[in-house]
Each structure stands twice: as C-alpha cells, then as structure tokens.
C-alpha cells in the first residue's frame, strides 16, 4: 500500500488493556481489551480514517499515538524511529510534531484564556519565535481556519464563541505549531451538521497548506469518505477491514462494514435503497473471548467456525485487507 510514499506513523501489533474497577468488596475487576493487535501504516500527507462505534477502541488508538497512553504490547514508530524510547529534547520535539484535536470544543479550551493566549500558548511552551513572530503566526493561522478578521476574535473568551468557532480555535492552536501529524478525534461530533462541513474543509485545507498528515477518527463512514484516502474499520478493538476509501465504501467486504453502511441514513427515496442486511436483528449469545468479535451480530457467520476461531486479517485484492472467513465483495447493491 506504499505506492512509493513514505510511512509517517506505524502501529505494530498494538495491544492496550484497561482494568475495569473491581467491586467495593474486593472482587477483581475484569480486564477490557481496548485494542487487540492493531497494525496500521499511515502515509505522509494522507488523511487516514479510523472508523468504529463507541467502545471500539478508536479513541484509544489516537491517544496512544500522541502518547497520552502507553500500549501494553507492540510498538509505534514516527518516521521510522520508535516512540517509546523518547526522552528529553527528543520527547519535547515529538510533542511539537504530533498533536491532537479533541472531540468536544466545549471542554478542550481553557475558559480563562483569551483566543490569542490559547493559540499562542503552544508557541510559548515550545519557545518558538519572539513576541512579534508569535503574533504574526497567530494572525496567520486564525485567517486560515476562518476566524477572520482575527481582530474580531483575539480578545474573546471561549464562552463568547459558538461551537464551530471554538473548534476552529482548537484547530488553530494545534496547527500553529506546524505539526507533522495530527490526530483529529471526532472533531465534529458535538457540532451541527451544517457546521461540520466547515471543519472538514478546514482540515482539507490544512493538509494542502501545511503538508500535515491526519488521523481522522469518526463513527461516520460518510464523513470518512469525504475526507480520507484510506479507511480502517475497527470493532471491539479488532481490525475488521482496511483499504482505500473507495474500496471500503463502494466494495465493502466485511459484514460489519456493510452493517455500518446500511445503518447510515440516506437521502435517496426509500424505494431505491438496497441493503446488505448483514446485521442480525437480535444479537446471539456468544463468548466474549473466542471467535470473531462480530459473531454475535453477524448474519453471514458460520455458527461453529466463526464462534470458535478468530479470522486473521488477510489481503484480498490490491491492498484491501479483511478479517472475515466469508468476506465477499460488496456488489453494487447499495448504490
């Protein structure tokens, strides 16, 4: 899948577990596997979509990349060098290069900092430029995220901004550092549909202008289709399907991806829509640890095979990877 392009971020067999809190009376809590042997390669300059439901582990993957969490197993590489060993200046440099845009702009901004202070703070922390340079940088980035004219906004505080404006401030704060890699964790899930389009376009522009690579985490395949070059679909911490955006949307192979596509509301007239119908209306009993994670809800599954054996991620056609024993090409059905 390299096509001669460099890999910027690579996740190799990442496992992340959380211990859920035990009971008050001393019973040990269960272990929850948030990510189970996930491997991803992200190419320089692309927007990579990570799609899944809540609890699928998609946010955890993003947090691992920016080092907010540490994996139990596996390695993460930035530009070919492993991240876990970084210390001192190299670590500080890493934090400049790799940034994250959080989901909720109502919580991610400090209410006591003005827009100017919010956006210039990262520059101060990383000791970039003098006061004049910083002011220029803040002005410039504000214009490119559509907070213009900047004079109208610099002295405002988060409570004086709309949700869309707040998220732009959050994006400006990240992009002002000129990072190499940005994790955008559902940046529009708290915003109105009509404002989301704005944020999407800003992300596309940033990729263009700053040559930044993005990991876009979302639960919406239609948003991923609009933004992303490659899409990975994960479910319960397992990689289900991986391929180019066109492959995933137009020729999905995994029953779970098909279920996600089925579930999206469509604009067409009701009569025209065909569904893949890969989702069982009522989930069946299944073991949490054995077999395919999607077995409980899959209508394609073979009862013995899929309940006992975990399907491996395999390449089917050109760079299209699927973890399913019964992966079939999605026909033109849904379209």
């Amino acid at each position, binding site marked *: 899948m390299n096509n001669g392009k460099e890999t910027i971020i690579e996740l190799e067999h990442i496992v992340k577990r959380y211990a859920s809190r035990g009971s008050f009376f001393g019973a040990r809590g269960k272990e929850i596997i948030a990510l189970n042997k996930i491997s991803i390669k992200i190419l320089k300059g692309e927007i990579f979509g990570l799609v899944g*439901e*809540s609890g699928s582990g998609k946010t955890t993957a993003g947090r691992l990349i920016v080092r907010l969490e540490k994996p139990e197993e596996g390695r993460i590489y930035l530009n070919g060098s492993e991240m876990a060993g970084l210390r001192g200046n190299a670590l500080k440099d890493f934090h400049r290069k790799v940034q994250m845009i959080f989901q909720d702009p109502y919580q991610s901004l400090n209410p006591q900092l003005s827009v100017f202070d919010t956006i210039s703070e990262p520059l101060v922390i990383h000791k970039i430029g003098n006061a004049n340079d910083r002011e220029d940088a803040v002005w410039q980035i504000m214009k490119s995220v559509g907070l213009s004219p900047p004079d109208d906004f610099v002295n405002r505080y988060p409570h004086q901004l*709309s*949700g869309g404006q707040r998220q732009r401030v959050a994006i400006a704060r990240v992009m002002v550092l000129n990072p190499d890699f940005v994790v955008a964790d559902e940046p529009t899930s708290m915003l*109105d*549909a*009509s*404002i*989301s*389009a*704005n944020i*999407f*376009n800003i992300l*596309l522009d940033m990729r263009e202008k700053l040559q930044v690579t993005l990991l876009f985490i979302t*639960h*919406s*395949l*239609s*948003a991923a*289709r*609009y933004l992303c070059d490659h899409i990975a679909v994960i479910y319960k911490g397992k990689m289900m399907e991986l391929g180019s955006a066109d492959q995933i*949307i137009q020729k999905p192979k995994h029953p779970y991806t098909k*279920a*996600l*596509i*089925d*579930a*999206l*509301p*469509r*604009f*067409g*007239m009701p009569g025209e829509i065909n569904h893949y119908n890969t*989702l069982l209306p*009522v989930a069946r009993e299944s073991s949490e640890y054995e077999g395919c994670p999607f077995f409980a809800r899959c209508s394609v599954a073979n009862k013995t095979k899929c309940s006992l054996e975990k399907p491996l991620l395999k390449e089917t056609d050109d760079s299209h990877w699927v973890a399913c024993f019964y992966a079939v090409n999605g026909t033109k059905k*849904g*379209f």
Partner: protein
Amino acid sequence: MAILEVENLSVGYHTQKGYLHAVEGVSFSLEEGKSFGFVGESGCGKTTLGMALMRLLPPNGVIREGRILFEGVDLLQKSDEEMREIRWQKIAMIFQAAMNALNPVHRVHEQIAEAILTHHVSLDKKEAFEQVEELFQLVGISKDRMSDYPHQYSGGMKQRAIIAMALACKPRLIIADEPTTALDVIVQNQILKEIMNLQKEFGISMIFISHDISIVAEVCHDIGIMYAGKLVELGSREEVFSNPAHPYTKALLSSYPTLTGEKSRLIPIQGETPNLIHPPSGCRFRDRCPSTKAACKTGEAVWIENSPRHKTLCYQCGTDCKQG
C-alpha cells in the same frame, strides 16, 4: 384529519439583554398517524417549538401569540391542571439527551411504573409492572434487564427505556427532540426503525426535531426547515429533498457528506446565525445567502406554493414569482 394544527405561533424569552424572538409565526398541521420533522441549526428555535407545544417553557419563556389546536381544542386556553392531564396521556415527549433523564438511584422499571401510576390512578403496582414488561418487550429490552439501574444500561438501552416511558400512557402524539443524538450509527438506525414501527403499529402521530437532515429524511412524511425562529420551507419529504426551493434548504443539503454519488467539495454555510434579540429586517438568511437581493431586506414575506404540498417563504418577489 389533522391531529395538531399550529397557527401563527410566536414564542420568546425575556432575557437580561431584552426579548429574544425564538420562534416567530410558525404554522403547520400534522395529520393523524403521520410524522412531521423540524430541521435547523442549533438556536433556530426547534426545541423551543417542541417545548411550547407541550407548554413546558422555562419561567422566562412566553407564548406571545398563536393557537395550538390539538384534536381541535386550543391548548393555550387550557388551565395548568387540564394541561397536566393532557401531558403524557395524550402528548408525550422524548427529550434531548433523554438518557440523562433517568434517575440514577431508582431501578429503570420502577421509574416507568411511576409514570404509569401517576396518570392511571386506578392501577395497582403489580398491574403497572406488567405494563412495563410489555412496553420493554415492544422497545426490545429483555425482561431480565428490567430491574437494572440506569448506569448498567448502554446509551442505546437508556434511549429505548425513555421511548418505553413515552409510550407508557399510549399517547396520541409524541414529540421527539433529537432522540438519537449521541448514539452510534448502528444503534441510531435501530432506534429510528423502532420508533417508525411503533408509530405504524399504534397509529401515533409524531413530531421529530433534529439538526440532522438525513435522520429526518429517514423518518418523517413531512418536513419543515427552520431558520432563526422562522419556518422557511415546508413540504413532503420527497418534494423538499428532490426539489429544494429555499436557499437555506439548498445550502443545508449541499453541506452534508453522502455515501453515494460524486465526491465533490462540500459547500458549508458561511457566517453565523443572526442575533434574535434584534433580528434583522426582512429575510433572516439574507446575510449568509448566495442569491440575496435588495428586496430581501425590505420585501414582504410571501409563502410561495411550489406545489400544493410544498411551500417556501420568500421576500424577494412579491406575489408574481414562482421560484425562491
């Protein structure tokens, strides 16, 4: 027959900065057994409208004018006591972020039984629990999870429980305000299907409020597009989507990413919604509209009939224009 007819409804709030015109001159009618969807950005007045229909506005909210005819009777003429009889028994509401509406210290089935017992004084507790069991079956929550506490439920299950609660007194009309926001796509789709099935099965009429035009398109027979407190376009789902007439509706549709069709750059709506304490004269969308003209500032609002079931509010063209 129309179960609900709203005529020229205007609702506002007294705030420190002055009177805020949240909903202005909204008229629509809902046929028995059908569903009507209101779409608009946050702050367009859609939630205020839902609350006003239930007469559940906060203390600073006022219904300035208009009539709300439910089964032919004006709800605004009812006393508080009479209104309490109608709420939940005849009109139920699924509130926004309803999953947080469950009381964390009571078991879920007790809370729903309580709603039933409050409105049906003749029932005893055992009968009420039996009804709860039936309701949970309807919305697809298994029996053995009935007596759990809310924190043991997933988001989707809480939402189902809230729907069960709305159905508890077999209402004629349900007002659902963003019932699936914050749910995953698959769960959202299941809940929407559930709502549609129940609606069909019991012939319940519905008002559906959402910022997401695609969800409303999935569920509703008729659609009203709201902008800055005003209804700007109104019609059957098919007509509004295949032949949108108001520039705002067009803008909403072109700012939404889709799974099908050509992948072209989305066109977001520029600018911000107007201040509703001092709303602009004329068309409220004119500052953000790509096809704005001088008449938009000074013209009279006219409802243009694109077809018998599809109307658009326009300021541009007086009476002789056919297209907004």
